[in-house]
């Protein structure tokens, strides 16, 4: 750098600026290490995050909280509870019965992975786990529907109970699809939105069908 040897900055020109090192999104660690806090605080923080996401699903607004801080606890809890509630629907555990626990689990997770891959292949900008998170959390209305169905089936299993179950399941299916579409559709290129929404519709339709056709022994 021979040519720069005689470069000097005049005294009256202020040189100022900022040097910042991007820290990333490790915001919880900025003040203190979470290693020393009581276990209750750690658990409550995660539970609050999951609970907040549940609320976001029930009132789907255009908030980015669901997308930004994704977690898969909620989907796991929902999936396990839905699969457990769908048990006891197999007639003689012959081939004609309802879905087994493993089948429900595989359908939900494999279906969510396939839909996520589909939206990424079509050019979506959402990340893999964010999409899984949204799809998993939006199973919440259908889990509520399953709970309601089981309660209604305790009362009786005639035509009236079927109509009630049908209405509840259809309403929750619509809610799930609309909630997940509200979160996911924005990350797609505009001329392919329908191509991305249709598999989500199919996914929740299959889950709703499993819930509606549940017949206890």
């Amino acid at each position: 750098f021979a040519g720069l040897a005689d470069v000097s900055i005049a005294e009256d020109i202020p040189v100022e600026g900022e040097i910042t090192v991007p820290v990333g999104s490790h915001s919880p660690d900025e003040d203190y290490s979470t290693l020393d806090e009581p276990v209750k605080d750690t658990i409550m923080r995660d539970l609050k995050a999951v609970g907040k996401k549940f609320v976001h699903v029930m009132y789907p607004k255009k908030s980015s909280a669901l997308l930004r801080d994704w977690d898969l606890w909620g989907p796991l809890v929902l999936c396990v509870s839905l699969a457990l509630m769908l048990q006891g629907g197999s007639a003689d555990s012959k081939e004609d019965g309802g879905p087994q626990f493993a089948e429900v689990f595989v359908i939900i997770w494999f279906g969510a992975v396939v839909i996520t891959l589909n939206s990424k292949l079509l050019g979506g900008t959402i990340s893999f786990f964010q999409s899984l998170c949204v799809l998993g959390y939006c199973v919440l209305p259908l889990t509520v529907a399953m709970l309601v169905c089981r309660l209604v089936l305790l009362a009786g299993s005639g035509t009236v109970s079927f109509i009630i179950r049908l209405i509840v399941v259809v309403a929750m299916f619509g809610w799930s699809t609309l909630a997940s579409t509200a979160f996911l559709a924005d990350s797609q290129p505009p001329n392919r939105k329908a191509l991305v929404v249709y598999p989500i519709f199919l996914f929740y339709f299959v889950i709703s069908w499993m819930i509606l056709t549940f017949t206890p022994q």
Partner: protein
Amino acid sequence: VASLVLYLFAEFDDAANLLAANPDATTISIDEPAEIPKNQRGHRQEPGREEDDELLGTDDSDKTELLAGQKKSAPFWTFEYYQTFFDVDTYQVLDRIKGSVFPVPGKNFVRLYVRSNPDLYGPFWICATLVFTIAVSGNLSNFFIHLGKPTYHYVPEFRKVSIAATTIYAYAWLVPLALWGFLMWRNSKVMNIVSYSFLEIVCVYGYSLFIYIPTAILWIIPQKVVRWVLMMFSLCLSGSVLVMTFWPAVRDDNRRIALATVGTIVLLHALLAVGCLAYFFDAPELDFAAPVTPAHNVSTVITKSQ
């Protein structure tokens, strides 16, 4: 030599057409020869060539290889490589579905709709929809058929979903693989003008299965005649799409082999439809004809456990 030169010029002409239809395809531009064919086409157009153009897609098949090679240039272990198979917009998918449901006689589905952009979205999701439609419709139709009987207890028959999935996905992927292998083998023996890539064959098969989705829904109607009429109708439509696609690829071959190939394609397609109808949908009249004897319970148990 002159005809070869004209063949090359006609190729470039079609390249211009193709570019006009697909402006964002990555191509190299060769300006000079594009001007010439407009004059040549006027006086050297052979009489049958127009119709052959449409049906065979002769010049385009070489073009498709050229463009396809330039589009799918990412190595196969990257994500971008697989994104090239999903490079379709909503209206394109809808157009392809429409083309499979309303086959225009004389028009080749691959040449008209796929046009060197085969996608995997259509085949995959049409198969998925078909699997669940058949399982759900079969379940519903059995429910309605057996509704009034006292010994009937509704079961969701969930196992049949996995069977349906295996069958339909195997059909939609293994049969094109076998067909592609067979066509490649014949191509090495007989110089066929038209050749399809594996993905184009998968595309045609996938989209041709679309007609079975409304057919499966309508199969809920518990009338044997209605079901068979629906099956014949959908078999004709989707079979004709397949025949019109593959006939140009084999017709330069030995007559008997060509007919056998097309016949096998249609036969497998029919077997799929008949098999699905027989396995997932119980026969409607069987229960009314069952005699009310002690053997009655045995026969209903047998039909239930089918």
